[in-house]
């Protein structure tokens, strides 16, 4: 897919031409004390043409950052590390030992790219990325709501969208418009429906999820920290949705829309009032006739497209439709938000961090790069798969995560360890331990409880808590899972009589690597002390590996 891009030489030449602007600038005019951020340094970037290989642009831009900030990137990872990292990011689980072996024995120089392509078209990828998107777009919830998300077709909708690699702009449009026209998209309504007619919740979600901006703060006043986010944007966004109402139809949950109403004033803290006009970020504006005060609007059939009572109401002038046509379509933040989020997903933190705070108070670490990638993403037709492939193909993605004495994480000079989401952790444990009774783990009650115990998905900073430690140490489910009685994997090695060989197989099976000398000797001691209780020894070691930080993180 990337073969059509100009190859390295051309890109390098182009980029170095742009980057060299700094050097000239320094010689002529740049004062010594000027802050050395890229933002002030590279102005010619907006003219960097599209059509270049994004992976290469990323590498050159980050390398430029390393030089500018005198940081040394860590070394590149070998194939064994790469295969684990990529499986976790793209299909949400560690690779099986056989998958690792297959990859390691391949000799083609293009095998990493081939694996990226292979995983991106797999059903597992669709299932995994849909889970991630669900957690981001609607969030963690209870059993009842999870069932409704499935029944409404929402989960299937996301899976199809990933599977068919549908343009992100279309997906965003469908979930915000919530007026599905074909059966495959019927679940799209759930994004709005799940907000239960709370129009402010809808506005806050749409802003964060689709535009990567948090407007919550602007409810009572213009955003105190980010000038460009105004109170009128908050109430304007609410107004685009405040004629909407959940309805239940034979086709499932739908959102009807009234043709009238939804006019009000909002007051700021000084007490002055303004009308809630249809306006959002960048002052994208939709004109609408406002009824005079005291005039009561009349709701008439001729204001609607369809008057069939069983259909959700669709007005001829639809604020939601106006929003997707005139505000959402090609809004620069539409692409930027997704680029930044997927960057965060693959690299461990966003170019803007936290990922849903793209505002003037949170400058990007590499603003020109983010701008260029966003334009590139838009010009690719919002091709999510291509974007993920580009990110996975970069040198930065394939750097070691070992970071002794290293730099500010925002320079991406080492890979950042990423905590596995609940789903990834669970799936990885099951893939490795192969329980005889996986049904217990896959039961919805268990999955939901687990997701709420490890709720983070792309958190600003993921800090573990004591409840997690207690569950991992004493929880009934994990004790059961890491038992010889339940685990096919453990059953397959109990008969190995040579303890050193058994320990190696445990390490290889769980962590995908060999133990070092110290680890072997520590485990040998642990086993020797339990010579009479071999199963307990094996279970103890397995637990120690499954709960190790090395297993818990994608590194």
């Amino acid at each position, binding site marked *: 897919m990337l073969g059509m891009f100009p190859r390295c030489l051309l890109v390098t030449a182009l980029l170095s031409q742009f980057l060299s602007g700094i050097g000239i600038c320094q010689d002529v005019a740049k004062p010594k004390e000027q802050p050395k*951020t890229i933002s002030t340094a590279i102005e010619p970037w907006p003219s960097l043409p599209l059509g270049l290989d994004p992976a290469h642009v990323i590498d050159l831009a980050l390398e430029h950052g390393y030089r500018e900030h005198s940081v040394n990137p860590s070394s590149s990872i070998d194939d064994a590390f790469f295969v684990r990292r990529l499986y976790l990011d793209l299909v949400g689980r560690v690779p099986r030992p056989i998958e690792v072996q297959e990859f390691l024995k391949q000799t083609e120089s293009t095998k990493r790219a081939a694996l990226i392509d292979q995983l991106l078209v797999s059903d597992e990828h669709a299932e995994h990325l849909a889970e991630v998107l669900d957690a981001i777009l609607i969030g963690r919830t209870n059993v009842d709501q999870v069932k409704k998300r499935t029944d409404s077709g929402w989960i299937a909708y996301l899976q199809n969208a990933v599977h068919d690699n549908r343009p992100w702009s279309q997906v965003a449009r469908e979930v915000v418009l919530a007026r599905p026209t074909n059966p495959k998209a019927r679940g799209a309504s759930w994004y709005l429906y799940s907000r239960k007619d709370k129009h402010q919740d809808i506005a806050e979600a749409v802003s964060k999820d689709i535009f990567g901006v948090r407007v919550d703060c602007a409810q009572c006043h213009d955003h105190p920290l980010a000038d460009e986010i105004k109170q009128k944007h908050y109430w304007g966004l609410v107004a685009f949705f405040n004629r909407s109402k959940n309805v239940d139809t034979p086709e499932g949950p739908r959102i009807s829309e009234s043709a009238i109403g939804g006019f009000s004033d909002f007051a700021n803290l000084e007490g002055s009032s303004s009308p809630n006009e249809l306006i959002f970020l960048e002052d994208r504006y939709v004109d609408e006739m406002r009824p005079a005060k005291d005039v009561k609007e009349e709701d008439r059939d001729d204001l609607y497209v369809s008057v069939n009572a069983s259909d959700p109401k669709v007005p001829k002038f639809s604020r939601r439709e106006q929003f997707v046509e005139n505000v959402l379509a090609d809004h620069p933040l539409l692409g930027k938000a997704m680029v930044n989020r997927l960057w965060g997903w693959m690299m461990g933190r966003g170019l803007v961090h936290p990922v849903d705070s793209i505002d003037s108070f949170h400058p990007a670490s590499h603003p020109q790069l983010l701008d260029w990638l966003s334009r590139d993403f838009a010009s690719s037709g919002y091709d999510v798969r291509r974007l993920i492939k580009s990110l996975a193909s970069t040198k930065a993605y394939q750097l070691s995560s*070992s970071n002794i004495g290293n730099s500010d994480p925002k320079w991406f000079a080492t890979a950042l*360890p990423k905590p596995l989401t609940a789903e990834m952790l669970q799936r990885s444990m099951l893939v490795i331990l192969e329980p005889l009774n996986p049904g217990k783990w896959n039961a919805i009650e268990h999955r939901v409880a687990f997701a709420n115990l490890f709720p983070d998905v792309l958190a600003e900073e993921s800090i*573990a808590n004591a409840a997690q430690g207690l569950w991992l*140490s*004493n929880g009934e489910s994990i004790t059961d899972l890491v038992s010889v009685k339940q685990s096919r994997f453990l059953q397959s090695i109990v008969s190995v009589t040579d303890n050193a060989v058994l320990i190696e197989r445990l390490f290889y099976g769980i962590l995908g690597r060999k133990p070092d000398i110290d680890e072997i000797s520590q485990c040998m001691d*642990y086993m020797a002390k339990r010579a009479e209780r071999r199963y307990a020894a094996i279970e103890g070691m397995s637990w*120690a590996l499954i709960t190790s930080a090395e297993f818990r993180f994608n590194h």
Partner: protein
Amino acid sequence: MSTDSKPEEMLNAPCGSIDHRLHRRLFLQGSLAGAASVASFQSLFSVPAFAESAKARGKRCILLWLCGAPSQFETWDPKPGRPSGGPFGSIPTSLPGVHLSELMPKTASIMDQLTLVRSMSTEPKEHLQAIDALTRGEAPRPPFTRPIFGSVLAKQFGQLDSPVPQFVFLDPCPEGNEFKAFKASNWAGWLGAEYGPVRFGGKYRIENVDLPVGMNPTDHSEREALRAFLSRKFVNDHQNPAVQSYNAVFERVKGLMSSAPLFDLSKLPESDRAKYGPGIFGMHTLLARHLIENGSTFVMVANGMPWDCHAFNHETHQMLVPEMDRIVFHLINDLKARGMLDDTLVLVMGEFGRTPWLNEARGRDHYPNAWSMAMAGCGLKPGVVYGSTDEDGIAVNDNPVDQRRLFATIYTALGLDPHESYDLPGFPTFYRVEKDAEPIAELLA
């Protein structure tokens, strides 16, 4: 967010690493080679060179965190009869000449034991930034995350080999908008995750505190020791708050298992529960007293954000203040009766005050310019009211107190030097309290 700031400011710092704090940890571990154990880092404080001072030992602190920010007019600084004063009157207290809101009769009767600041004057106007400033002492300066002062105390006073968690955060209301965002941030900051809080939610029980079926305590400990050993290299190679915090939670498991009964309120006398209850704020304050009695160093009692009265300020305060009044009264009395008030500092505060005027919804909005907070106990002079506001409570008359002076006073009261610097290799020099802020001498015993 806790790390909001302008990254450009950081460029003058000698090094931009969020993680250099951990080098200190490695350095310390290296210097104690041979003393390694699961609890090795805790035991550092038995080494005199690293213990601040023996005299500071045994100090404790309870923070009643009135999140959302209560109105000073309906609590500590009433202005009866003034346009800003609201409908409630004021009442005399056990301290001659000092009046509190009539909503606080019980606390008024022990005013001679409290230390009140009526001239708080701070900057941040939004919850997140204000909570940050009033719990850490400074605005964020990424990538360096200043610890919450509970973590500082947990580190300074943390008792050797105590199974009881040193920093407990009682958090009955996990939702709560901006407070939720704050809770998601890194509390222990550069001190490292082991000084972060043990959070305890709405339930009065901790799950998974019993040994797995069929496992004896020795196996449990040795299994954990093996886990720690097998994680060591990875954890050392990944100087990252998420990794470090994951590893740190396992160091707490054993202590939590043995101290779990402490969290069981049903084991406390019915009379105590009746006094503090029935609300969850009171129950958790009782729990805080109980934990402090049993070895915790710092307990923060939060309660969602009910005080954020942008609408119906008076009605809401009419509901909330009497509960707080009763809780503060019993807590101070109980600590005193147990002889614990001398080494336990009690703080009652939110992140700012509320406006002297009402908005259209008859609410009071955020007002950091002039507000009040109360303290009692350890190292403080009781029965002192410091600073004042003008007749309408619009501005501070005299002796403005910002969060730095407040923290300087709190640390000094607890026997800690507020000007002590953090020795963090590769970091800019940070002080426990920045800008040489001086403690308020009039408030110190």
